[in-house]
């Protein structure tokens, strides 16, 4: 019930809504709860609403952290 997925905003529609691509499936979602969304953004969609916009820099930073850790782990005897 709380599962929500990142979706790519493809088109802004009237009435505060947008067309998104959710893993290949096109859906219309409400943008009533977020501000300044533009096509190309990724939003977290839950029960038909975008709840937040994904920050690409923070996402890259988190992935970078994983990678560093992978290198670290290789140095540690298991």
């Amino acid at each position, binding site marked *: 019930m709380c599962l929500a997925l990142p979706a790519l905003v493809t088109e802004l529609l009237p009435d505060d809504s947008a067309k998104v691509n959710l893993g290949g499936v096109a859906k219309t979602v409400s943008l*009533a709860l977020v501000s300044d969304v533009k096509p190309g953004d990724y939003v977290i969609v839950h029960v038909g609403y975008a709840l937040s916009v994904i920050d690409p820099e923070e996402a890259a930073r988190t992935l970078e952290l994983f990678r560093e850790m992978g290198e670290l782990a290789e140095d540690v005897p298991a």
Partner: protein
Amino acid sequence: MKYIDEFRDGEVAQSIAQAIKAEADPGSTYHIMEFCGGHTHAISRYGLEDLLPANVRMIHGPGCPVCVLPVGRIDAAIWLAKQPGVTLVTYGDMLRVPGSKRLSLLKAKAEGADVRMVYSTLDAIKLAQANPDRQVVFFAIGFETTTPPTAVAIKQAQALDLKNFSVFCNHVLTPSAITQILDSPEVRELGTVKLDAFIGPAHVSTIIGSRPYEYFAEEYQRPVVIAGFEPLDVMQAVRMLVRQINDGRFEVENEFARAVTRDGNEKAKSLVADMFELRRAFEWRGLGLVPYSALRLKEPYAAWDAERRWDVPQDSPPDNKACECGAILRGVKKPTDCKLFGTVCTPENPMGSCMVSAEGACAAHWTYGRFRDLETSHA
């Protein structure tokens, strides 16, 4: 898919697991509760427990809104659905949850009540517009993630001057539930459940931010890491928590910075603050009456409050005696401790709420975890 696949990489998961193994002190134990059912689901689905060293244990928390709604509120929804002229609409998961006497909304529907499933609150509004001769009642449940969508629907109903739409409000608040767990005798006095740290909610925190957890990290001296729902997010959160425990720190850290900020979603928060107020107490399955843990509509929105339109029964019948959902939701028992698990109770024929939603501890273990039990018992 972007922002999904990269966070599911199996090799990276292994290397995070190794890092955890290297950092966890073999002489200590680490008991980490994941509050959210979304994390429970990820842990079962990706077998994350198998990747963790034996002294790092995950404890499933109460964070599934379907699971924590007490039987009395389900009975009340069924009662509403049976009122003349009422069409009751709700999210799909709610339809199969057994109330008392094993009646569910789905069975009430089979018996002639007008019960419909919606994907979004906006569909509920559309249904009310299309059926002006029916009273459409939205059975609203969920944590801070589903409350703003309910608020948007009420705003719309107001703008459209819809007289045949109302909300049966069951929205509950995460921080008060976590506090209740930490105050529970099992954790506090009996010490039967050791809780060293929490993985904080992902999507709930997109709305409320990480700030509300700062109070209890400080007050209860437990570290919290807000984490996303993908497997690498959960593994990384475990590692961050092991580090905090080792260092004797109790801070709120944010692993899910790609979607969560300290203050959350101001637009959604102000909408909710404008429309809802705290209930003095609300019953949670497994946790009992939790003070200031749920919301109801404020007076100016009374016209959209189903509990003011109808004299909705406020009973609290006990749970099915054999069902251990209550203890599971408090982290005291595991699904396999329940005699009914996998025999009488399965997702097709759930006896309790934990078996209904995919994020319930029993359903998650039934779907992904039980083959592991077989392997371990044969080994």
